[in-house]
């Protein structure tokens, strides 16, 4: 296992009085795809979103424990949360382009972080649209509204938008579940390419997808981390009875 980029230590999250995840400890390896799997409601998404402190946007959520990102606890009160979110990007389940043009969607993040020069923005937009595999489809209509794209294209636009702030980590929350098979396949191909440069954490409820993509697997059940390890090991030789049961399709 390569050095961990993110070390999660004793992480618990509660919505009001309801505990969503409890005492999670896991290391996320660098430049690999880590898949978080488990039945629905097991806390996969909560765990994922806690990494870049997105859970605190939801009213009534409390978080304990630490997420150590490159030696720094993300939950340290002195940490600039916008800086953390810039370095740890998110690709959500359903694409939500911002209410602006295709170009402006990609340029939004870089603009926030101080890039103003047109030439620099043009370069970023082209580079990231290419990285997301969307450039050829939109290069002639960069200033058309993003809402006019198909859902599959919108998801790739959201990928380009996320990449444009040059994050080190990409959190992917069931990113293909709203897409048709062809679009889903395209996104998967992108993720496999991107892991050369990015650490990817992927939540998925599609086991086959996890098998196709994951290098490292985290299995969650009822808010607890049951098992984690290299994909080969977890899929072919699970140590825990619950993991085995889930992999064999006894519950979803």
């Amino acid at each position, binding site marked *: 296992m390569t050095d961990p980029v993110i070390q999660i230590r004793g992480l618990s999250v509660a919505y009001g009085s309801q505990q969503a995840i409890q005492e999670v400890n896991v290391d996320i390896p660098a430049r690999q795809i880590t898949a978080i799997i488990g039945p629905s409601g097991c806390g996969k998404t909560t765990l994922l979103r806690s990494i870049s402190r997105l859970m605190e946007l939801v009213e009534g959520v409390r978080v304990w424990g630490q997420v150590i990102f490159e030696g720094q606890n993300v939950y340290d009160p002195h940490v600039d949360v916008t800086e953390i979110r810039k370095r740890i990007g998110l690709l959500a389940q359903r694409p939500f382009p*911002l209410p602006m043009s295709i170009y402006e969607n990609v340029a939004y993040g870089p603009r926030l972080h101080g890039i103003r020069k047109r030439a620099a923005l043009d370069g970023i937009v082209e580079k990231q649209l290419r990285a997301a595999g969307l450039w050829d489809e939109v290069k002639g209509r960069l200033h058309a509204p*993003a809402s006019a794209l198909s859902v599959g294209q919108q998801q790739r636009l959201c990928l380009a938008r996320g990449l444009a702030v040059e994050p080190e980590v990409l959190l992917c929350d069931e990113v293909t579940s709203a897409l048709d098979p062809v679009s889903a396949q395209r996104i998967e191909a992108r993720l496999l390419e991107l892991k050369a440069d990015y650490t990817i954490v992927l939540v998925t409820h599609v086991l086959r997808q996890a098998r196709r993509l994951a290098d490292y697997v985290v299995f969650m059940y009822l808010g607890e981390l049951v098992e984690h390890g290299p994909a080969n090991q977890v899929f072919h030789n699970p140590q825990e009875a619950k993991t085995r049961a889930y992999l064999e399709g006894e519950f979803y």
Partner: protein
Amino acid sequence: MGKRLEERFFLALMVASMMIVVGSLGLILVTVVVKGLPALNLAMLTQAPQGGYYLGKEGGILNAITGSLALAGGATLLSFFLSLPVVLYLQLFARDARFVHLARLSLDVLWGVPSIVYGVFGFTLMLLLGLRASLLGGIIALALLELPILVRAMEEVMTMVPFELKESSYALGATRLETALRVVVRQTVPGLLTALLLAFGRGIGDAASVLFTAGYTDRLPTSLLRPVASLPLAVFFQLGTPVPEVRERAYASALVLTVIILIISVSARLLTRRLTRHVIR
């Protein structure tokens, strides 16, 4: 059979209610047009009252048209700049749910306050400040009247913004303010515009709040500190005279007021269509 009869009976009731609603609107429009149109001429729209206007002689209501536009325009602008921060605060920043609730409750109460109360309040305020009846005074009173409408209507629109859209912005490292101004406002532009027009419509049609605060004059508005005329008061004063020609002009003035509101609504619709280009559904 009984059920079908029941259904028909209630259908008839619904249709009757619809007729009453649509019919009243039609009747109002017909009355205003039939009684106002004969008195309406170019001079009415392009001239201020001349000597003897109120006895049926030469002149028009340009003073009231321009005055009303200045009053309602100024008030809408003022209350917009007052309410946008309030709305953004309530929507994106406020942490204390009880405070937000209290704020909304007070706005709802303010919404229900009769406009004459705003007029009297504005008048008291002006006395305190040493101001006399003026365009500025009218703008302030009308802005108070429009404020709750604007805040609540704008809030309504912003509540509809999907959480995921805001999250997308935060996830890129945007602050609350950046998200508010660059994403939420842009997403809600059509709704904000509708809210502005709603407020403008309420403002331009209100007589009681400008009665004491803006006064009335035969001159065109030239200064924030001078009194201005307004269309609702033009209707009121002209309808109160014993001269039949002048009473006809009251209906003509009402027609002008109605047409202004109509033009604004329609152009808003057209403008909204252009602005929805980028909105995410």
